[in-house]
């Protein structure tokens, strides 16, 4: 089955360009004519993961692998890693710095929001070795 892969670089603390990778992914899916609801879900999750990387991670990449059946988004960073993944998955839990909270981030809803909007989600993280968030979305209402 033909598929398309793309990778975007995401830079730590770069709030000016934060979100651009997710917009690219969103527009790629639109040009492939996926149903709007699926595009919306991928966009929301991609953005949450991208912002996590900008705020907590280190420099890293957002990659997307698309075919007619499913969309896989991998967000990989080389930052400090998550100490307790289970705790991080709880709504309202956040380690965001005060300065980020002042910008309206850090409500502790990022990872739970990804969980809610994706069909499959796997986080692998090791303290000191970065984090890998893998999200899978199945294309049920095929429009491609």
């Amino acid at each position, binding site marked *: 089955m*033909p*598929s398309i892969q793309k990778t975007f670089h995401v830079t730590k603390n770069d709030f000016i360009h934060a979100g651009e990778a*997710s917009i690219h992914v*969103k527009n790629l899916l639109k*040009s*492939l004519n996926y149903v*709007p609801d699926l*595009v919306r879900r991928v966009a929301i999750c991609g*953005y949450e993961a991208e912002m996590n990387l900008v705020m907590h991670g280190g420099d890293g990449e957002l990659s997307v692998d698309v075919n007619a059946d499913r969309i896989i988004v991998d967000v990989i960073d080389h930052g400090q890693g998550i100490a307790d993944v289970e705790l991080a998955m709880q709504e309202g839990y956040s380690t965001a710095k005060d300065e980020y909270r002042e910008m309206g981030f850090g409500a502790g809803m990022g990872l739970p929001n990804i969980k809610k909007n994706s069909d499959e989600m796997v986080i692998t993280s090791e303290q000191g070795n970065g984090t890998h968030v893998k999200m899978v979305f199945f294309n049920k209402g095929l429009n491609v």
Partner: protein
Amino acid sequence: MKDEKGGPAHCFVHFESDLCTGCGHCIKRCPTKAIRVRNNKAVIRHSLCIGCGECIRICENGAITASTSELDSLHSDKITIALVSPVLYSQFPGVLPKDVLLGLKNMGFTHAVDMSYYFEMFQWATAEYISRNRKTGESPWPLISPVCPVVLRLIVCRFPSLLPHVHPIMRPVALMARDVMSQFKAHYKIEDHDILLYYINPCPSKMGIPKKELGQGGIHSTGALGINDIYAELSRQIKHTEKSDKIPFAQAGFEYEQCTSGGGLLWSMSGGEAEATGLDKTLAVAGLNETITYLEKIELGLFNDIEYIEFRTCREGCIGGALNAVDKYLAKSAALKMAKTLGVGTRLNRERVLRLYDSNWFFPKISPQELKKLGGKKEKTFSFDELRKIEEIVGIIDGKDCGACGSPDCRTFAEDILRGDASPHECVYLKIRGITDENILKKIKS
């Protein structure tokens, strides 16, 4: 690509090929990539045009004009009614709105009706809808203002997932056209086709009001005139007055011509509509690029803590429309002064508005999905295989989006090649590297 012939709903601009030098400035400005240069002349796909007027602004040769109506019919035996956007008043600094309306009548309109009354209607209905939506959750936040038709077409064309966010109340101009028609029909005891409505327009996007949008049908004819079309003649007709006596708010009645208010003038500027909602959680965004950036972000799930967003694709709001005669900053100064002179206030009977609200008077009989038919169609999408080939061609070109080929950027050029709308030899980058049509076409067929 041929210059398509479209119906009135799909024909906002007109390209005069004799005046076009093929400079290509317009192809880069178009937000829906509807324009190409072919055989050294700009051509447009009307089906993709959303009527934003950016190409009119950028063209140095005056080759692009708005497709407005002809004024000839003013002196026919029909009743002609000007529907006046308050933007018009901002074009005549120091002149009272009632004198501008009088000037229109001197020009030959049977009646000139001010829109601010309908802005108030819209604003009441909006406040009501939002307060009910807090309980029902019928529409997702943020609601997107339906007032600027370019924004609606932009959403249909590029952001279809945001259609459920579009505020479902009828636009003030549509409320106005429907109401004015029925009031004057009853007054003169005549039929629809004996009345001609003309919308006096600051932008090319509102060329007539589609019957479908009015919901009730039966509107025989609505035309549109650009402010710049009538400016010279209207200036001659307006009697300047030194007196700046306040105009009393007329009660809802037949005296439309008296119904101007300062509030209406505020609507012509960015932020006026958001302010009029009286809500805290609102935003006002103006400018085409700014609007696109915000729509992109709403699609990422941002701004869901905002209840209502006013979008205008023209800088500074409607006073920045491409068909105005006076620069937006001068117009803004004039409008603010006049708003102060006239005073801002409301004059509607809330209970009457609520009765109308509950009788569904404010709701169009079309769903967001049907909005698609009102203009701004989506380009045909590509299959996976085609998209891979497009990516591959973009990689081979490895260009700088120069636009010399006549397409706005390398990617669109590659898409045009796949559509059979362009040939590889038109690209200077491919030519320099000696890559021929055959090399590329072989890749497409593989």
